[in-house]
């Protein structure tokens, strides 16, 4: 894809992100951070698709390491966020 296309997506996504996050109430700022931790685990997709570069042995070892780190974020991030959000209920 054209670099300008990628830049366009980047800038628009950043603006959408700013718009949404500004509306998150302070009470949810901690789950917001752990939730975005999980989303940053999207680099798992990067780890899976980067194998087309370079020397296969090296790539597999590095890719393996990146998969571990990213999966900790994805699984840990979504689970802990769910655990926190379960506590945020209105009580009577």
């Amino acid at each position, binding site marked *: 894809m054209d670099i300008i296309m990628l830049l366009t997506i980047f800038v628009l996504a950043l603006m959408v992100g700013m718009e949404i996050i500004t509306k998150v109430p302070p009470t949810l700022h*901690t789950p917001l951070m752990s*939730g975005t*931790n999980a*989303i940053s685990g999207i680099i798992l997709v990067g780890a*899976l698709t980067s194998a087309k*570069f370079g020397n296969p042995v090296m790539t597999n070892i590095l890719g393996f390491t*990146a998969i571990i780190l990213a999966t900790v974020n994805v699984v840990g991030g*979504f689970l802990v966020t769910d*655990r926190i959000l379960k506590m945020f209920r209105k009580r009577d």
Partner: protein
Amino acid sequence: MTSSLTNIFYLIASVLLIWGLKGLTHPRTAQRGNAMGAMGMFVAVLTALVTETDLHWGYIIAGVIIGGSIGTYLALKIEMTAMPQLVALFNGLGGGASLIVAAIAMLPAIDADFSAPGLLLPVAVASVVSIVIGAVTLLGSLIAFLKLQRILRKTVVLPGQQVINGVMAAAVIVCMITLIVHPSPEILWGLIALSALLGVSLVIPIGGADMPVVIAVLNSYSGLAACGAGFVLNNNVLIISGSLVGASGMVLTRIMCRAMNRSFRNVIFGISMGGKQVDQSDDIYQGKIKSTSADEIAMILESARRVVIAPGYGMAVSQAQHAVRELTNLLEGKGIEVEFAIHPVAGRMPGHMNVLLAEADISYDKLKDMDDINPTFAQTDVAIVIGANDVVNPTARKPSGSPIAGMPILDVDQAATVIVIKRSLSPGFAGIANPLFATDHTLMYFADGKKGVNEINTALKEA
């Protein structure tokens, strides 16, 4: 064709992730939003697995099992008081993974045995930027983690810290350019090492109360590093998700800085709050401190109609949140209205106090933001400050002359009676005396947060 189909699935994943974040704008929809985000992630990963991966399956399965187990263990076992550490750790891992992915993309260029054409310039730039941000985030977060876990207890400020950081940043830039022009393994390693050192040196001088800002910044970086990798790999879902995380960190950083009335630059370059302090605590406190007991506090509370509790980091340290919940129940049982005043930077991460109180089963609609609660202090009979100091220091109202000048604070001093539960008169992070403690209507209860609140509870039950 495959590529278009792949991109359609990445688009679906991105939409789910954005919707998921949108769910977080209200406590009622938040849990569903999080689940939707997880679904988006699942779609993205599955798409990559099915259509794009050349990695050996054994590595993928082993990696996912190991990472998944560690993640599950951490998520289920972590104490809520330790959430700042966990977020710091996750920030670092995200940065680390992006660093590796970007480095993999550099491999063909630096591998002499591998007859690849050189990288395209935009790809090379993105890859190098991603390596730098990833390494800074990885090591910076590790230091933040060690500090929050109190393994690293000292705040080290080297002489000429800013000069050192400046020189290192310049060296990093030189390395980046060299790596783009003449890729070689030595320069790649040099760049990673230098960036890691820069990460350490940026975070190591930053102390306690500035931690919320540091965590928010590193959160943002972990997203931007993934974003950079997205440019390298030509991958939409990486760019979109990375930007969302980057944006989130930026917005939180701005909110935290505003809540401390400090510029981003001051926090990040470790400029201490206002330089040397003259210790005036003797003048301010001399003969004016009124110490009280649990029984007396119980008596005062008995006759109150409205009580506001202002918690700070001390509540987290002493794990007092469950005792505070009991106090709230006791008071409400007597028909007293109870609300909580939450300063944006109370604690060690954005929203820290809210999570602890929610954990203790306190309904989120009782937790009020600073702007909402401040006008109500004048109609409040008793304000109870638990383990907070700088965020209730009236010195901040004076426009200048103190490190916290101009910082918005909780106006607890406008309540009819203020009770401060604190272990001693020692200053908070800003290192200055708090005139609130010496006012006529303030009573000091010198105790550990949890123990103190429990004793008040006992006294209330006996009354």
